[in-house]
């Protein structure tokens, strides 16, 4: 099977800080990959390198056949980056809905402005996706009238309406009150079962164990483990992974 995301020899420096160290990774279509690791291990940075919110220092990113070398400049590079962004949808920790636009306007902004989609068609598609996350009835509200969980679900609908090949989630439940986490995870599960390729940076071990096909563990800028969730949780190899999972187990009890 051809991987839909392929990262090769990726390095990222922040000044002199080596945040990502020679990372290579392939994600296949329809796979749900969870990225876990302690904060500061570089998992968010890795995710943000995939759609070039962070420009990689070295290495290549390939998404759905579009291959982009990191650290380049110029119009051609910008075009490639743009193409990659069209293939990826991103969901942020802080939702980042546009507060001056209604829920529906938030969702159709991308298709209409970026893709030049006919507004009628975009509304159709947007409403379909709002229905998918169960928030069609809120389409005319403004984001400030929504709960955190609802905001995040709209953000997911917004990303889905761009019809991406891969969805990137950057700690989608970390800014939520505990009682609101469930509704967001449920929507993510639904999107996963519908066959979307997903890369999820998360602290939700339960979600990782239940939904992920693969769990990647990051530590100190390196991929230290890559396993099926069952294997990883029952038989962690790296001591850092062990520590992570132990902490999760204590939290669970």
């Amino acid at each position, binding site marked *: 099977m051809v991987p839909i995301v392929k990262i090769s020899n990726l390095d990222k420096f922040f000044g002199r800080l080596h945040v990502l160290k020679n990372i290579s990774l392939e994600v296949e279509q329809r796979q749900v990959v969870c990225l876990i690791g302690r904060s500061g291990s570089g998992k968010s940075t890795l995710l943000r390198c995939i759609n070039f919110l962070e420009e990689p220092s070295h290495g290549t990113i390939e998404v759905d056949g579009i291959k982009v070398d990191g650290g380049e400049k110029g119009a051609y590079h910008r075009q490639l980056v743009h193409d990659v962004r069209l293939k990826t949808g991103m969901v*942020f920790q802080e939702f980042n809905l546009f*507060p001056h*636009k209604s829920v529906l306007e938030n969702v159709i902004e991308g298709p209409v*402005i970026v893709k030049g989609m006919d507004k009628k068609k975009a509304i159709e598609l947007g409403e379909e996706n709002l229905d998918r996350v169960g928030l069609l009835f809120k389409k005319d509200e403004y*984001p*400030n009238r929504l709960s955190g969980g609802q905001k995040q679900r709209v953000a997911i609908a917004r990303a889905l309406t761009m019809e991406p090949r891969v969805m990137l989630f950057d700690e989608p439940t970390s800014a939520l009150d505990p009682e609101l986490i469930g509704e967001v995870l449920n929507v993510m599960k639904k999107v996963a079962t519908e066959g979307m390729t997903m890369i999820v940076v998360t602290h939700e071990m339960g979600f990782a164990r239940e939904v992920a096909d693969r769990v990647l563990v990051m530590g100190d800028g390196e991929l230290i483990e890559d396993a099926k969730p069952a294997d990883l949780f029952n038989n962690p190899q790296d001591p850092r992974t062990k520590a992570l999972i132990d902490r999760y187990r204590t939290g669970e009890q």
Partner: protein
Amino acid sequence: MNLFKKGTDEQKSQADLLFEAQQRKQNLFRTQVALSWVFLLLFLLFLFSGLEIKSGEGVTSLSAWSFHIITQNNRQVREKIEKPLASFPFGLPNEGLDLKTIVVDGEFIKENIDFVAEGIIQTIRISILSILLAMLLALFAALGRLSSNPFIYALSTFYVSLIRGTPLYLQIFFFFLALPQLNIVLTGLWAGVLALGLNYGAYMSETFRAGLASVGKGQREAAIALGMTPAQTMRRIVLPQALRFAIPPMGNDFIAMTKDSALVSATGFVHELMWRAQKVGRAEFRNMEALVMAAIFYWIMTLLLTSLQSRLETRLSKGDR
């Protein structure tokens, strides 16, 4: 307000009662403020009413002074005339009392009010042209302040520093009187608009900059992740939010500018409110009446603009975080 539907006092919670008491207190305060305003306004009117109270041995009288047109040596002149209103058979001893308020020349106002009022149009024209120029300059200056290009950054700070470091009055004269030496001749109107626009642009750039800075990094990232270009991100996501933030202070600037447009009268060639008031006032030595007229016009304009501004603010606050 029907905040609390139905229900008797017993059914209301402690919090509701407390809230209501607070509301009543606030309403009372507001009523008192409004009444005080009316009182102050009436007092001001009284000061200019031309009433006189005289009190001497055994008699106290109230009279009203006003100007009337009379014919004197075949010429019509305006003369101050006293009209007794009432007198009472008692009074203060010794020196007594003589309280006289200001007598306004009503005939003069009647004759000249139309001429002065016509200046409003010009005042509004200057203000609108200037604010448009100022907004444009302020936007570029603010973007310049956020630029990573050192020259553009310098250009923006240099402009702001130079303009804020010199008087507006000087700037108006510079454009009107100094530029002709370089064979650039501007009409009074355009010299004024240019000076006001440059001046307020410099001040407003700070407002714009704060507005742009108020839009979080996450907003830009979300737009970029959707595939928007930097220009689209700026136009569709950042600017609308920044503007909403900047509208209230911009409204204040616009109101301030409307009043500062009076300085343009100094060129002598822009027939706006202030110029007209000065012209008629000087001609007949009725400066008080003329300036009071202009002051009232400015005040009314300011009041209208203020209410417009607060309405705009309410409309813009939809979807506020």
